[in-house]
């Protein structure tokens, strides 16, 4: 519990310093000015989302191999957190695009594959809600999660493979890409801050799923205890009748 509070305090401090650095320390971009600073939260939210979805992929494969429920819990927690980060990216993107491009949205390869990714993982959560049997729910959602993950590399590579309205990559984008050193440092701080927030939320969501599993087990135990005497009664009645 102490470690948890310490981590929360560290994350709160990181949020404060990252916010301050993004708004006041990072140099002004010559053409976009203030609105360019959205980038310091837009890109980190995607990095956090990709990290969460990679854990989901690992958890889905691990569940299918081992059939351990903890991996199903890890998977569903990651999907919810990933969808949250994706939602942030899908909102901050258009808020940057409107003053820079003059439009909120365009169906280019990057934006479309990202939107499909969001829909896929929302469908994953809806699918779980439709299934009752815990084992069937876990197996089907693991298979669906692996299928949905196919879109993750496509999102990452989309603006490298095709010409897009979305800007070309500024980091590891080849010749002509790169950031001002101070911008790079501020971005790194923001990436660390948003990533730590994601980890904090992910741990809580995972705990919730484990508690739900415990709750289901207790319900099953109570149900089996209640049905046992009734079944025995039914058997003895049948025996008496025969």
């Amino acid at each position, binding site marked *: 519990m102490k470690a948890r509070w310490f981590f929360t305090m560290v994350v709160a401090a990181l949020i404060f310093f990252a916010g301050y650095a993004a708004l006041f320390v990072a140099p002004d971009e010559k053409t976009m*000015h*203030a609105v360019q600073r959205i980038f310091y939260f837009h890109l980190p939210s995607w990095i956090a989302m990709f990290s969460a979805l990679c854990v989901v992929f690992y958890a889905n494969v691990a569940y299918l191999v081992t059939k351990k429920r903890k991996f199903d819990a890890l998977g569903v927690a990651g999907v919810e957190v990933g969808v949250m980060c994706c939602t942030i990216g899908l909102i901050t993107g258009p808020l940057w695009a409107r003053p820079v491009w003059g439009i909120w949205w365009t169906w280019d390869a990057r934006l479309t594959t990202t939107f499909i990714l969001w829909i896929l993982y929302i469908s994953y959560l809806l699918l779980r809600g439709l299934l009752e049997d815990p084992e069937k729910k876990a197996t089907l959602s693991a298979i669906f999660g692996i299928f949905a993950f196919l879109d993750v590399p496509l999102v990452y590579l989309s603006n490298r493979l095709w010409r897009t309205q979305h800007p070309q990559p500024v980091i590891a984008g080849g010749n002509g890409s790169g950031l001002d050193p101070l911008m790079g440092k501020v971005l790194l701080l923001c990436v660390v801050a948003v990533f730590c927030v994601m980890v904090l939320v992910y741990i809580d969501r995972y*705990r919730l799923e484990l*508690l739900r599993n415990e709750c289901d087990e207790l319900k099953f135990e109570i149900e089996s205890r209640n049905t046992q005497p009734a079944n025995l009664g039914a058997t003895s009645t049948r025996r008496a009748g025969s």
Partner: protein
Amino acid sequence: MKNFEFLLTAWIVVWAIFFAYEITVARRITQVREEIARLRQQLNGN
């Protein structure tokens, strides 16, 4: 600052979503814990 309202909106949206989500998770944890305590009591009572 030009277009500051877009930056401000993005800033609010990011942290509002994170905090709102964390609050819903914390509330759900409390509810499930209460449910577990109730079920344990029921199980011990039987």
